């Protein structure tokens, strides 16, 4: 396998295009800007369109339009800009328009935004949180597959390390299996047939071809997300069998935790790690099993404790859960602070271990 030296943003853009992404619209914001620039540079040659939208609101609505017309489409920003997109993300979940939202976030403070969302209605957003650039390349394609599979918007939760790390990667089209036909997509051919198509959150249908209407439609949407919750969880773990301590982390932080845990393991500590790969659906069943025999569950994330809620909900014994993360931002506001460092994480883990735990 030949590796190509690419910056994360370029690798992710290349991978999205390899997945068939043909429309992208975004608004510059660090550290998302690199992805937008790469899309702008690469999409025309692939027969696609990239628009520098007038704001994040228009960017996501352009993307919704392109996706409703059947194209693989994506938008992106960092958490601050994705805050502006919440209305359209909720709308897309409710009117079943599949597209991908690349959150090239500044930090891990968007966990609630990604997994709880800020729009209205009974919806969830599938959220992928890759730990490094090679996995980001895979997720950039998996995100489109999951979006099309479930007719729902999918969030790719990246960060400055994924956007700006230059690393050797291989980008080629990945096959995740068959997908249903997009026979619902608007292509204009339904006009005058008496059964013209409609993409509508209220799903009331046409006078001659009534739809389910909001009550039945929104209950069906809720059931769809319950079904996704049951089948699409992804997680990774190591050294769980004999672990007294389990450290839970996601995204880049999990990569650091994995490194530190291997170090501590080599020093003779009975410690393991657990990483939710999908933040929603949260791999609660896997976490419950992984935490069944441990004395303490340590949660490390670069925020004030957001995934902590999900760990407490799903851990075998929530009294064993300790938070060892925290808010940590660089002076620029655009990158992680001092906490994202292996020696610091090691100290926090060892301190928590010395403070005991569940007996």
């Amino acid at each position: 396998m030949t590796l190509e030296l690419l910056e994360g943003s370029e690798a992710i853009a290349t991978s999205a295009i390899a997945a068939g992404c043909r429309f992208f619209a975004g608004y510059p914001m660090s550290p998302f800007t690199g992805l937008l620039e790469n899309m702008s540079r690469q999409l025309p040659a692939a027969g696609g369109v990239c628009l520098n939208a007038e704001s994040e609101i228009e960017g996501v609505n352009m993307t919704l339009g392109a996706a409703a017309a059947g194209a693989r489409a994506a938008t992106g920003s960092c958490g601050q800009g994705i805050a502006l997109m919440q209305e359209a993300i909720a709308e897309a979940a409710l009117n079943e328009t599949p597209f991908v939202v690349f959150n090239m976030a500044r930090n891990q403070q968007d966990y609630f935004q990604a997994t709880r969302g800020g729009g209205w209605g009974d919806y969830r957003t599938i959220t992928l949180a890759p730990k490094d650039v090679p996995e980001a390349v895979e997720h950039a394609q998996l995100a489109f597959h999951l979006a099309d599979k479930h007719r729902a918007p999918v969030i790719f939760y990246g960060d400055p390390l994924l956007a700006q790390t230059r690393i050797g990667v291989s980008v080629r089209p990945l096959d995740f299996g068959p997908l249903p036909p997009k026979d619902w997509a608007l292509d204009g051919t339904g006009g005058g047939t008496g059964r013209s198509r409609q993409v509508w959150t209220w799903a009331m249908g046409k006078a001659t071809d009534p739809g389910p209407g909001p009550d039945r439609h929104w209950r069906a949407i809720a059931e769809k997300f319950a079904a996704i919750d049951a089948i699409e969880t992804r997680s990774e773990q190591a050294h769980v069998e004999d672990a007294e301590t389990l450290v839970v982390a996601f995204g880049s932080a999990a990569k650091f935790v994995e490194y530190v845990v291997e170090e501590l393991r080599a020093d003779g500590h009975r410690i393991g790690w657990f990483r939710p790969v999908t933040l929603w659906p949260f791999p609660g069943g896997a976490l419950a099993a992984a935490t069944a025999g441990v004395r303490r569950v340590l949660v490390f994330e670069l925020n004030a404790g957001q995934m902590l809620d999900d760990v407490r909900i799903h851990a075998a014994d929530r009294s064993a859960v300790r938070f060892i993360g925290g808010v940590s931002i660089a002076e620029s506001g655009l990158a992680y602070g001092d906490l994202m460092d292996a020696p610091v994480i090691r100290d926090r883990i060892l301190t928590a271990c010395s403070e005991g735990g569940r007996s």
Partner: protein
Amino acid sequence: MTVIDTSQPPSEPARKVADFRPSLLLGEHSLCPGCGEPVALRVLLEVLQELDIVQRTIGVVGHGCYGSFVRIMDVDVLQCLHGRAPACATGIKRVRPDCAVFTMQGDGDMANEGLQEVLHAAARGEKITCVLLNNGVFGDTGGQLTAATVLGQRTKTSLEGRDAETHGYPIPVADLVAGLRGAAYVARGAVSTAGAVAQTKRMLRRAFETQLAGAGFSLVEILTMCPTGWFVPASEGPGYLGDSMEQAYPLGELTTWRH
């Protein structure tokens, strides 16, 4: 001179205007008596049919009374978020350049919530046709002040009439759009008289022809009656429109592209 014999019952039952509807209308509308929006919908659908683009047209409909047309227009439709129709239409047109793409928006949708969208879509020269149904009030919510409400108009949020000191001046969307280079065809019509309806239909036709020729962005603003929102009897709507809105928003073509 033809004399109609009224001494005998008619040979066939009376028919309503709705019975002469274009085939793209799937049913009757459910809007208020005297509303102008169904007339605008009707001429729009007639134009699609006459241009023979019915099976390659995608509509994007915003939020207002006309939103209910989604159920009765036999056209592929995205019902989008309030104000965002030109952005959604941009995405659709860019991935389906062979389709005719139009938006249907009210003045609340386009001049209030979505002014940015329509201006940027026009400046980009998006090859879409935006249809603004301007009745000068938020009709769907019962008659409140919009950015397009004319001075002096009483609404539920300007009870003594719109005065510039308190509420500012109305925004003439078509005039703003006409000043942008990407706009290839901009016109303002009305549906208050038979003549205006015929003129509006010609404007819609030219707007779609502009789009199909790839010349750039097109917009047709249509002044429509909202007697309910204006607090006037239904029968007085057309006359009231002529006395109030039409004085602030003169009818005619503002920008026409050169063939």
